[in-house]
C-alpha cells in the first residue's frame, strides 16, 4: 500500500524542484534596476492610493444574495427548456412548482425593500439602527 504513495512522493519532490528551479533561474537572469516606479503595485497602471481595507456598502452583499434567486432559476430552466418538448406536461408542472417557490423569495425581498438601492423607511423603525 505504501508503494502506491511513492507516486505521490515523486510528485511532491518534482513539484518542489520545479518551483525552486524556475525561481532560481529567473533570479539569475533578471535585470535588477529597482526604481520607485518599478516597485509600485501596478507598474503600467493606476497609481494606487489609500488602504484596501475599507468598508463598503453592505447592500452589495444583499444584491449578490438576491441575484442567486434569478441565477438558480436560469441555471435550471435553460436545460429544462432545451428538452422541454420531450418531457411533457409533468415537467411543466414541476418547473411551475419550482418557480413558485423562487417567487416566494422574490416577493419577500420586494416587500422588505431590498430591491431598491436606497432602502425606503419601514413602517416599523424599531428594527433600524441601535437595537
Amino acid at each position, binding site marked *: 500500500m505504501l508503494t502506491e504513495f511513492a507516486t505521490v512522493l515523486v510528485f511532491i519532490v518534482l513539484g518542489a524542484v520545479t518551483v525552486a528551479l524556475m525561481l532560481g533561474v529567473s533570479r539569475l537572469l533578471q535585470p535588477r534596476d529597482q526604481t520607485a516606479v518599478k516597485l509600485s503595485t501596478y507598474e503600467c497602471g493606476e497609481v494606487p492610493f489609500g488602504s484596501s481595507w475599507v468598508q463598503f456598502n453592505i447592500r452589495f452583499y444583499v444584491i449578490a444574495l438576491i441575484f442567486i434567486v434569478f441565477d438558480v432559476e436560469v441555471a435550471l430552466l435553460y436545460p429544462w427548456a432545451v428538452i422541454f418538448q420531450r418531457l411533457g406536461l409533468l415537467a411543466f408542472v414541476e418547473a411551475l412548482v419550482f418557480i413558485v417557490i423562487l417567487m416566494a423569495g422574490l416577493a419577500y425581498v420586494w*416587500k422588505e425593500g431590498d430591491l431598491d438601492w436606497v432602502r425606503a423607511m419601514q413602517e416599523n423603525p424599531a428594527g433600524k439602527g441601535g437595537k
Partner: protein
Amino acid sequence: MPLGNLASVSRFLPELAVTATILLLVAVHVVGKNRQSSASALLSLAGVGAALLLTALQPSMPAVSLFEGMVALDGFAVFFKALTALATIVVIFMSMDSAELSGKSQAEYYVFLLSVLLGMFLLSSATDLVMLYLSLELVSIPSYLLAGYLKGRKSSNEASMKYVVYGATASGVMIYGFSLLYGLTGTTQIAEIGRALATGKAALPLFLAAVMVAVGFGYKIAAVPFHMWSPDVYEGAPTPVTAFLSVGPKAAGFAVLVRFFYTVFASPDGAGGPWTLSSPVDWTLLFAVLSAATMTVGNLVAVNQKNVKRLLAYSSIAHAGYMLMGFVLLTPAGIQAILFYLVVYLFMNLGAFYVVILVANGTRSEDISDYAGLGSRAPFAAVSLAIFLFALTGIPPFSGFIGKVYLFAEVINRGVYWLAVVAALNSVVSLYYYARIVKVMFLEEPAEKAELAVPAFPRALLCLLAVPTLLLGVYWEPVIRVAANSVRLLAF
C-alpha cells in the same frame, strides 16, 4: 428497488407538509400587517403537527427507497422524523413564551426553524452522498441565522459568526471525504459504496475518508474535538434556539452518523444479530476514543461554569459522548440504546432550557448565582428544574438513569470495560455540577425575595415535559419497543 419520482411523492407527505408551511409563512410575512402577531407561531404549530401526524401514519414497513435512491423511508427515518418534529413543537411553544424573541419579526424566525426541521427530516433519511450533503447544509444554514437572530446583541452575532466559520470548515472537510469515497468507488449511493468497499483493499485512503466524514458529523453532534463552537453558540443564541440546537440537529447528526457508517463500513444483519465490519477500516475504536474524550471534556469543563446556558452546553457535549458509546458496539441493541436515550434526552434537556427561559424572563439573567433562592421565589420552576437536572445526571428513578442503563449494559455485554469505567466516572463528575445548581436554588439566600411569577401555560408545558421525564424512569417499555423496531436500516 428505488421508486421513481412520481411514485415517491405519496410517501413524502411529512416533508411536503413542512415545505408548504414554510411557503405559507413567507406569504404571511409578505401580506401580514403585524409582524409580532402570534399567527405565524400557530401556523407553524399546525404545520409541524400535521407533519408529525403524517409521519406517524406513514407505513414504514417494508422499507422503501424514494426518488431514485435519494432518500430512504424506513423505521429508522420515521423514528427520527417523529423525534425532531416533536422537539420542534416544544421549541415553538418555548419561543412563544420567550421574552428575548418577543418584538422580533415572528414569521422569519419560524421559517428558519421549519427549514431546519425539513433539513433534519431529509438528513435522517438521506441515502445518497449528494442528498446527504445538501440536507446537512439545509440544517446548518438556517441554524446560523437562528443563532444570530438577536441582531442587537453582540454575543448573538458572535455566536452566528463562530458557527458559520466552524460549520464551513467542517462541511468542507466532510465533502472532501465524500469526494475520496466517490473516487474509490465511483458511486454516490451509500449502499453501493458499502458493497464496493467490502471487496476493495485501499485501507489508508479509506481511513482518511472515514475520518474526514466523521469531522462533518462530529461537528453536528458536537463531539470532541469538533465541539469548540458549541459553548459560544449555545451561550449567545436566543435560549429557545439553544434548546433546539442541543436536541434537534444533534439527533439528526446521530441519525446520519449511524446510517452512514453502518451502511458504508458494516453489513447490517437483518436477523437482529450484531453487524459485521465489512471494510478494513476499524472505525469503532476511533469512535470509542472520541466518545471517551467527548464525555470527559464536556463534564470536566462544565464543572467550572458560571452561566447556566454555558453549563448546559458543556453538559450536552458530555451527553453526546454517552450516546456515542452505543454507536461503537456494532449491535442493534447499541443503536436502540442511542434512540431511547435521545427520547429521554429530548424531554429532560428541553425541560431544563425551558426553566432557564422562564427564569430569564423574570430576572434577565442566566448566571447561576442569580438562581439563589429560586426554591422559595418560584418553587414550581425550581422543583421542575431539579427533576430535569437529576434526570440529566442519571439518578434513579428518573428516566436518564434508564437511558444510561441501556447504554452501559451494551458496552459491558460487548466487553468494552474501559469505556464503561470512563463513563461511570464521568457520571460522578456530572453529579457535582448538576447538584450545585440545585444547591444554589434551595439552600442559598436570594438577594431579592420577590416572587417570580410563572404563568399557567408555561406551568402546563413544564408538567408535560416533566411527566415523561419521570414516567420513562418507571415505565419505559413502550418506548424501548418503538426504538427496537426502528433500528432496522434500509439495506437494498
